[in-house]
């Protein structure tokens, strides 16, 4: 009885995408060849196909970019009325909306994330960040930073591979709105949407040097951070690199904000709305293949409902579709690189070794590309590596608790503090928990919700500084410190 509705392949078309064979660096309003760097390639992690040749910037390129940013800041951008700056940002926002289908496809090709996510989350949010910050450009006197807050100057920004265009928007939009100019280094494995963003800047007639894009690996990021011409450093990435950056800017006048790793607790109480909690757990850890700093990677479930909840969770996990990221029905895409896959695989193996019980729904993994099935570990305790270390993959560790107090204790028992989730039908409990969780973002009865109007950032070793909201502007203004 019953017919399985087999979803036929529903691939998004690549016809809107026109990639160049080779990309230079974007410095001072133009694409240019490297002065002293080299060339490399970027590949599609789902197929291992080479997408384009891109430049690996050299130290001379970094210097040229910073100098271009400085010129633009002191002569043009920093002197421009806020209302005029805002209008450039509105233009950029509009162009992102217009080109959003094309950009979503490129993001999926370069990153491996499902097209459903690039199309429905990454692109709309990226445009929204530019819209939101465009409106602040001429309203800074109302933002709580004094009557005439001034920009810091040149911002050096290094972003990760998990939400390439969205992380670019989180960095560039507030920096520009507040009158700074930018040298941005996208991640080594995901340079393409940043390079297309450079085209968007040209289409918006953004003055030369306001945005500069340098592609390359970690060494380029380090060079940007270390350059004496950079006044402000903004980094999103691993806690390990965050520590290095904090050390590198010590003793300088550089302002710095860091958005680092996490090991968020997703706490489910016995009175939680079960079906929605299951969705929230899924969204919390399998969205974007778990490549999310604020992912809910530790499920803390109240012991009295653990069995029921886990049964519902496993049932739901069986409906997750893993495969071609360009297929509109794919829920779980490719792991971003061979290196990341190796890390996830190794940590999952540690879970087995330490005695936790691994489970994944049956899942056909494609033969090329980098793939890891959605995975659940039960019988996990606080001391296990998979409960303490950030895996950055679709792996959920399940622990139990008895009382709200114990849940808070376990949730906070980590060097990280980026986010947390609380699932309960009782409003006062949600708020009591929110007050006590040492995390920069607390989601109650939801998870992984983002909005440019809501500040985002971590406690403790998840970093410092906030992005988004009125509070996020302070990182780019002289008045805040």
């Amino acid at each position, binding site marked *: 009885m*019953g*017919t399985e509705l087999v979803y*036929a392949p529903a691939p998004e078309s690549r016809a809107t995408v026109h990639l160049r064979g080779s990309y230079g660096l974007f410095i001072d309003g133009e694409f240019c060849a490297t002065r002293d760097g080299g060339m490399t390639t970027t590949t599609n992690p789902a197929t291992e196909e080479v997408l384009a040749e891109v430049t690996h910037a050299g130290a001379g390129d970094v210097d040229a970019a910073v100098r271009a940013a400085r010129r633009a800041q002191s002569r043009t951008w920093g002197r421009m009325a806020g209302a005029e700056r805002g209008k450039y940002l509105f233009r950029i926002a509009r162009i992102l909306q217009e080109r959003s289908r094309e950009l979503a496809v490129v993001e999926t090709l370069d990153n491996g994330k499902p097209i459903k996510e690039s199309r429905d989350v990454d692109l709309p949010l990226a445009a929204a960040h530019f819209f939101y910050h465009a409106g602040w450009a001429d309203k800074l006197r109302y933002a709580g930073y004094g009557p005439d807050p001034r920009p810091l100057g040149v911002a050096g920004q290094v972003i990760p591979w998990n939400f390439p265009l969205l992380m670019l928007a989180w960095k560039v939009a507030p920096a520009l709105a507040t009158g700074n100019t930018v040298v941005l280094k996208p991640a080594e494995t995901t340079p393409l949407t940043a390079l297309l963003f450079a085209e968007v800047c040209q289409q918006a007639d953004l003055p030369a040097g306001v945005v500069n894009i340098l592609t390359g690996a970690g060494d380029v990021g380090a060079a940007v951070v270390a350059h004496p011409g950079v006044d402000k450093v903004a980094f999103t990435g691993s806690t390990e690199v965050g520590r290095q950056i904090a050390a590198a800017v010590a003793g300088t006048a550089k302002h710095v904000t860091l958005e680092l790793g996490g090991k968020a607790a997703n706490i489910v109480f016995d009175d939680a*709305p079960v079906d929605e909690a299951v969705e929230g757990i899924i969204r919390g850890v399998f969205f974007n293949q778990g490549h999310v700093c604020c992912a809910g990677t530790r499920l803390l479930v109240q012991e009295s409902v653990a069995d029921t909840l886990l049964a519902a969770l496993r049932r739901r996990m069986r409906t997750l579709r893993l495969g071609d990221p360009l297929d509109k029905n794919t829920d779980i895409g490719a792991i971003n690189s061979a290196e990341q896959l190796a890390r996830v695989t190794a940590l999952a193996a540690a879970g087995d070794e330490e005695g936790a019980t691994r489970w994944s729904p049956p899942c056909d993994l494609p033969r090329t590309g980098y793939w890891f099935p959605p995975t659940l570990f039960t019988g996990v305790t606080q001391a296990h590596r998979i409960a303490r270390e950030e895996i950055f993959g679709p792996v959920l560790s399940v622990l139990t608790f008895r009382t709200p107090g114990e849940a808070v204790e376990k949730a906070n028992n980590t060097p990280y503090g980026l986010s947390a989730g609380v699932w309960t039908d009782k409003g006062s409990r949600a708020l009591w928990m929110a007050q006590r969780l040492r995390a920069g973002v607390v989601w109650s009865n939801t998870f992984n919700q983002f909005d440019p109007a809501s500040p985002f950032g971590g406690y403790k070793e998840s970093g410092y500084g906030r992005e988004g909201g009125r509070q996020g502007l302070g990182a780019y203004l002289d008045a805040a410190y």
Partner: protein
Amino acid sequence: MTVTVPSTPSTRLPGSLADTLASDASLRRFLHGLPGVDEVGANARAAALSTRSLKTTAKAAALDLAITMVDLTTLEGADTPGKVAALAAKARRPDPADPTAPAVAALCVYGDLVAVAKRALAGSDVAVAAVATAFPSGRAPLEVKLADTAAAVAQGADEVDMVIDRGAFLSGRYGRVAEEVAAVRAVCAGAHLKVILETGELGTYDNVRRAAWLAMLAGADFVKTSTGKIAPAATLPVTLVLAEAVRDFHEATGTAVGVKAAGGIRTAKDALPYLVLVGETAGADWLDPTLLRLGASSLLNDLLMQRARMARGRYVSPDDFTLD
């Protein structure tokens, strides 16, 4: 296609669940002890399911499946034997130009037109469903509602679509709601019983979940969203809550109760997400006319149009399909 043989309600509940029917208080404890539904989360899940993309072979299969799930409906004061006969002809052969188009599941009419419908559908597999129990308001004494039901069954109705007493539900008289469902169930004898919850009047998804469980505990073979006479009628989130309820009831008792989404489903684009949603939530077993129905009238022509478009490779005119 065959109609499910309804199971007898008294034998299908395990003891613990059967005990809940003892009183308003015990029903209240049980129903209010069910997990709540977060409205925002449920809306988001339904919206996410509606982004599933059905293309090519999947779409063709889904369109045909949807046609077999249609309860082709006419519930107007102005209905006549002529109108019912015309609709019956369409029900058995929906596409005049294409005999491969499947027949619908049932013809849904007011109780006093059942005999006409049965004659018109003789020799086909299309069932006759009758609305009963003072449809749509349900505001009448129980004797009247039972007489209404009995008359329809006597004329040969294969299926009965009853309405619950929403006044009783909203004032906490759960026992009364259950009694009425059970009483109607008994009068139905061999006919299968769909219980209309009128979700648009229930106010919250928590209430939809409770009403669904109440109907199932009392013997429903199908839970149905709406009469189609008020707005909102069927919506994806409300149907999600019903799909979850039938899934959980099956897990608790082994009995599969069907889901009918009725009212406001006008186009194939509206309808196919219901199949996706129920299939992914309750399971593939529910993707069958014995467990999933769509109550609609103009929907059928749009399903046929989409079907014809896929077959012919071009857009088609509404004039190619009959208005009955």
